[in-house]
């Protein structure tokens, strides 16, 4: 089969390129960095700092003994004059001094920290919260309320959202699904653009090289066009596969080098974020929640949908882009055709927030069924769970449109590739379709 020879060339010449290798190996490093850096930074920032000695100059005398020394910070209470202490900080005797001025009302609300080097944010917030609890405690006592009663009255409320289907009830985690949907949507957006533009550039290259006439005397233009589209699709899938494998490999290697407690650092970070969102303080419960989230998402369905929509969307757009490449003489002329087509892909991108926050709204449903927007629109909704009939309708529409447009594009392509030196308009292109 000649189309096989074409696919092979299109695939090999791209995969052997240096830029392909660089992107393939750098991107997973980048992904891995994205996964581990936040964990490293938030969990280990204190470890990277040396132990600090902080002097406390408390004129109000309210906080004596309240700041507790830890492995990282030592608090020393000194009654000396603050100006003298400041000098001693400058001399390097202390890393910093906390100055709490006395007030007439005897309710201190201000504190100052003097240091030569920047004091870590964690230390500042520790001082703030300690002062807050102490002052609040004092105020409650002054009003004759037992602080223990207030503590007992504080309640964490946990609201669970449970979606019902015929056979099961499932807990849902909207925030996570939203993030996943938008992440997948962005990936699909970039790869469709990246690879269908490569198809267009390939067509223009053949045209400006003038090799096209030699080739179409050996193979049908349709075979050449499809060979190119399929070859580049395989390049894209190869890249995905390598990314997935390499990201997993790098994550695996990275986690063996990190302390045991950080192995699930991403999980921990996620747990912390959820902790903030849901105000669940029990860490055991939050870890359980992370597992619940992971279990609640149907990853297999998402993966399949992702592949089907990527392939459908890519084929549809790359057929159109191939026709555009054939119609013009060089890349600078492509803009007038590329811009309106790109808009079709940008619409669901712009609406992604709207779709994800209301995945069952009419706008979301229409954008996920109309073929040009469905690859993005549907992928946004998939993590939330979509009725199967909608997926079937949307996919069928996408693939039927892809077949129709490939057929139309091949007509434009056939005429366009042998046409030189002509400024082509939309009107001209529609005429070629009729030939």
């Amino acid at each position, binding site marked *: 089969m000649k189309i096989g*020879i074409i696919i092979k060339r299109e695939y090999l*010449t791209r995969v052997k390129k240096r830029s392909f290798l660089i992107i393939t190996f750098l991107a997973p490093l980048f992904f891995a960095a994205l996964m581990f850096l936040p964990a490293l930074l938030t969990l280990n920032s204190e470890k990277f700092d040396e132990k600090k000695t902080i002097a406390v100059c408390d004129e109000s005398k309210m906080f004596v003994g309240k700041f507790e020394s830890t492995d990282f910070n030592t608090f020393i209470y000194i009654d000396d004059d603050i100006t003298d202490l400041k000098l001693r900080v400058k001399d390097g005797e202390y890393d910093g001094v906390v100055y709490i001025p006395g007030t007439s009302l005897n309710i201190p609300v201000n504190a100052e920290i003097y240091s030569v080097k920047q004091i870590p944010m964690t230390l500042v917030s520790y001082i703030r919260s300690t002062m807050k609890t102490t002052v609040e405690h004092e105020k409650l006592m002054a009003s004759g309320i037992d602080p223990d009663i207030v503590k007992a009255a504080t309640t964490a409320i946990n609201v669970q959202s449970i979606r019902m289907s015929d056979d099961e009830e499932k807990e849902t985690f909207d925030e996570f699904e939203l993030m996943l949907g938008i992440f997948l949507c962005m990936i699909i957006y970039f790869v469709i653009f990246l690879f269908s533009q490569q198809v267009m550039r390939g067509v223009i290259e053949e045209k400006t090289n*003038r090799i096209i006439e030699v080739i179409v*005397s*050996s193979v049908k233009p349709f075979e050449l066009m499809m060979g190119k589209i399929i070859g580049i699709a395989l390049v894209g899938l190869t890249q995905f596969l390598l990314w997935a494998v390499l990201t997993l490999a790098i994550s695996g290697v990275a986690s063996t080098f990190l302390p045991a407690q950080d192995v699930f650092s991403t999980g921990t970070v996620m747990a912390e974020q959820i902790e903030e969102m849901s105000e669940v303080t029990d860490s055991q419960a939050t870890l359980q929640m992370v597992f619940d989230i992971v279990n609640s998402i149907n990853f297999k369905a998402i993966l399949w949908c992702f592949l089907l929509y990527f392939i459908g969307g890519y084929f549809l757009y790359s057929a159109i882009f191939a026709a555009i490449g054939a119609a013009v003489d060089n890349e600078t002329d492509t803009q007038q055709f590329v811009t309106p087509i790109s808009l079709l892909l940008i619409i669901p991108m712009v609406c992604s927030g709207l779709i994800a926050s209301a995945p069952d709204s009419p706008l979301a449903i229409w954008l996920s069924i109309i073929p040009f927007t469905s690859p993005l629109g549907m992928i946004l909704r998939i993590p939330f769970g979509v009725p199967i009939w909608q997926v079937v309708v949307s996919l069928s529409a996408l693939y039927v449109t892809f077949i129709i447009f490939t057929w139309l594009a091949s007509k434009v392509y056939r005429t366009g590739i*042998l046409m030189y030196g002509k400024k082509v308009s939309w009107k001209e292109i529609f005429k070629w379709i009729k030939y």
Partner: protein
Amino acid sequence: MNYLEIRNVNKTYGDKQVLNDISIDVPRQSIYGLLGPNGAGKTTLIRILNQITMPDSGQIFLDGKPLSPNDIANIGYLPEERGLYKKMKVGEQAIYLAQLKGLDAREAERRLRHWFIKFEIQNWWDKKVEELSKGMQQKVQFIVTVIHEPKLLIFDEPFSGFDPINVNLLKNEILELRDKGATILFSTHNMSSVEELCDNIMLINHGQKILEGGVYDIKQQYRSHKYEVVIRPSQSELEIPQGLTILATEKDANGEMHITVESMHANELISDIIKMGEIVSFKEVLPSMNDIFINLISSSNQR
């Protein structure tokens, strides 16, 4: 026996008739010239033969059978607008193009090595095309055109872009290919190469056939019965015999007279001239293909 026969081919783009009822017979193992000014329809006709474009009506026979998609392997085509992938290595690219013509990779490589040795370009194999000069690329292009040993070769302006040395090389290769059994169709403006190479020609203008036939026959058909004679006069004063139509006379530094004369019968002319002095040379002035071409095109454009 004709190898290629084109029967009543018509092609219209929009409302412009590009080919109007064109028929051609190309004898086996001959070189056939397709002549005509720019926009005459040559390239369209060639694209139809290569099955890049479909004719609106008419038929094409190759070796007596209607042209079919399988005939791609029987045709080698060197287009006027030609090129190669710039970033691809020469050898790799040649194998790819040969594979598209239906050769398997190993056979393609074997034949290519042979050709590369013949053209003394073995060391180009692993070079990228963009590293080669234009003339070098043309050589590679020629090899790629003939690598699958097609029975019909189509050259569209083959000599454009070649330097004189390579033009010569190419002419010899074309003649050699014909002697080995190939039938060659070539389209050109280069009239001197037509006279040198072609057995038959066809002249088209505005999609219409104006003239067709053997190069020798056409020249005979368009002879103007003019002769150029050089004589050494027997007397100082030239005596012109009765009934001779002298068109021009000129005396050169050696005292020889150059006379252009018109006559229907060469032998009678000689017996007349012999009286005037000693004949140094005598030859018929035949119109060049270039003159015929220009005359016919300008008169057909006037109509």
